[in-house]
């Protein structure tokens, strides 16, 4: 019972993240598809799993989260705001002069972001370095890196994957947002399958889950690390644009006022500011 409530609560967080993404797309161009596909995982991470302190973003004991697919920062910004790193109102200033809400993840302007990303294929190597540093300190911080499936075509990811396993970085977690699209269909442009087998072959303890099933997300995150002495990989099977009909398989959207309202209504998040909690 308590667990079901918890899941329902996290699902509601995910809906709110999606609503924020839709509102941002109502203000400016927005990488909607890949932001919406990670909303559930981000809700699970920021409201269930990650040890972070919004009052002290630089807290040494924090778990690190790197959004390697940095173009999907609208969803991350929403999660950070909802978690209390900055007011949710700030999200309405996306791309405005001197806003803290950037078009790609920017550690210099946005509280709670540790690593600036946007150029694909950087996050996992930095994650390996962070995890090695944590181990040198004898500390227990965990490092989560969210990677796009298209992004995995960059060879740097596989260099990092090799290093993560070689150095037995048990605290390192790669989450692949397997939404099957980049700017076009991934398997047609440069196929990745068999993807889970690739991670296994590189020495990662790997699980494939439904990235829109909150119960599975929670159960998976609770099971980390999956194996002793190995980094963990989660292939999170998702739908690009999930939950917002006009964003399905879309890389970017810009909604007008009417479209924004319709998409918010789809999410059951219509009406003004979408409520605050």
């Amino acid at each position: 019972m308590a667990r079901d409530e918890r899941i329902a609560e996290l699902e509601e967080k995910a809906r709110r993240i999606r609503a924020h993404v839709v509102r941002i797309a109502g203000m400016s161009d927005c990488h909607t598809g890949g932001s919406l596909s990670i909303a559930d995982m981000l809700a699970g991470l920021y409201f269930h799993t990650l040890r972070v302190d919004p009052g002290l973003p630089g807290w040494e004991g924090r778990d690190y989260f790197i959004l390697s697919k940095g173009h999907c920062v609208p969803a991350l910004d929403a999660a950070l705001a909802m978690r209390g790193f900055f007011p949710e109102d700030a999200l309405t200033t996306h791309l405005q002069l001197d806003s803290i809400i950037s078009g790609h993840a920017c550690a210099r302007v946005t509280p709670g972001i540790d690593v600036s990303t946007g150029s694909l294929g950087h996050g996992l190597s930095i994650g390996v370095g962070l995890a090695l540093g944590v181990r040198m300190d004898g500390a227990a911080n965990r490092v989560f890196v969210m990677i796009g499936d298209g992004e995995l075509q960059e060879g740097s990811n596989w260099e990092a994957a090799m290093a993560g396993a070689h150095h037995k970085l048990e605290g390192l977690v790669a989450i692949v947002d397997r939404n099957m699209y980049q700017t076009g269909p991934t398997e047609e442009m440069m196929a990745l399958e068999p993807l889970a087998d690739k991670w296994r072959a590189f020495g990662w303890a790997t699980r494939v889950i439904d990235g829109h099933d909150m119960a599975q997300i929670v159960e998976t995150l609770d099971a980390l690390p999956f194996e002793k002495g190995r980094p963990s990989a989660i292939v999170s099977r998702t739908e690009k644009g999930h939950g917002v009909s006009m964003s399905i398989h879309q890389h970017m959207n810009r909604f007008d006022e009417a479209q924004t309202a319709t998409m918010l209504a789809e999410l059951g998040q219509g009406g003004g500011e979408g409520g605050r909690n």
Partner: protein
Amino acid sequence: MAKWFGDVLVELARQDPRICGVSCDCWGFLGALAAAFPERAVEIGIAEQNLIGVAAGLAARGKTPFAIGMNPFVTMRCFEQIRTDVGYGCRNVKVVGGYGGGIGYAGWGCTHHAMEEMALMRLVPTMTVVMPADAYETEMATRAAATTEGPFYISLSGATMAFMPPEARRTFHVGKAVTLREGSDVTIVAVGPTLPDAMTAAEILTRKGVSARVLNMHTVKPADREAILAAARQTRLIVTIEEHTVIGGLGGAVGEVLAEAGAGTPLKRLGLQDVFACMVGRYEDVRERFGISANAVVEAVMRQA
């Protein structure tokens, strides 16, 4: 840009069977080629290093590949492949930056600023570096790349469609700057997206009684020595303006020519002054704050006057 470039590429491909295209998630540029010659258009995925290595391999087999990616990534991520497999290998590869020239991405973040594309590409021995200003120059640069043996970089910035005045369109020669406006007091040298700033500044300066020449330095390498030295002799100040770090790009190229010739004419380089243009805001906001605007040119000139 994608369409103009794509259409010219197909035409060139009809004339020359060696021409082919490789894309790294920039398929929009190769759609037309793929429709006409499916086997001569290759998608490589989001993998710039592989893109250039594969292009070098195609060139090693006698092909003339156009390798297309986004400006910041297709120059930075695979710089060593460009330098070694294309430059050192003397391979006939045409690298094309299709999206995101200069600081076109502005408030979307510094990861997407191609603020060193010209500098990096200039560093590669034998590489020709061109930044077309509009559709006409895009077409001409693409033709030139196809017919010139050797490494070539074309930066399609996309920022200044249909900009050039018609009379200036009649000539385009690699390595020859285009005089967009005659002037006798100062010379403003611009490239790609900063040409409109240069033209606007020249107009404002005229009203202030300063006669400004405007040079479109579409070929940053080899830089037009003759045009630069003529400007040095005939005008009292040279201002360069670029959406790029002032180190090693347009300002750097002009400065090298001036210094080596002992010209002595003062040079003011506008562009990113060894900083990241890190801020959120619109394109115009970012340019204004980092001194890449018509106003900045006018100020630089008036300060020297």
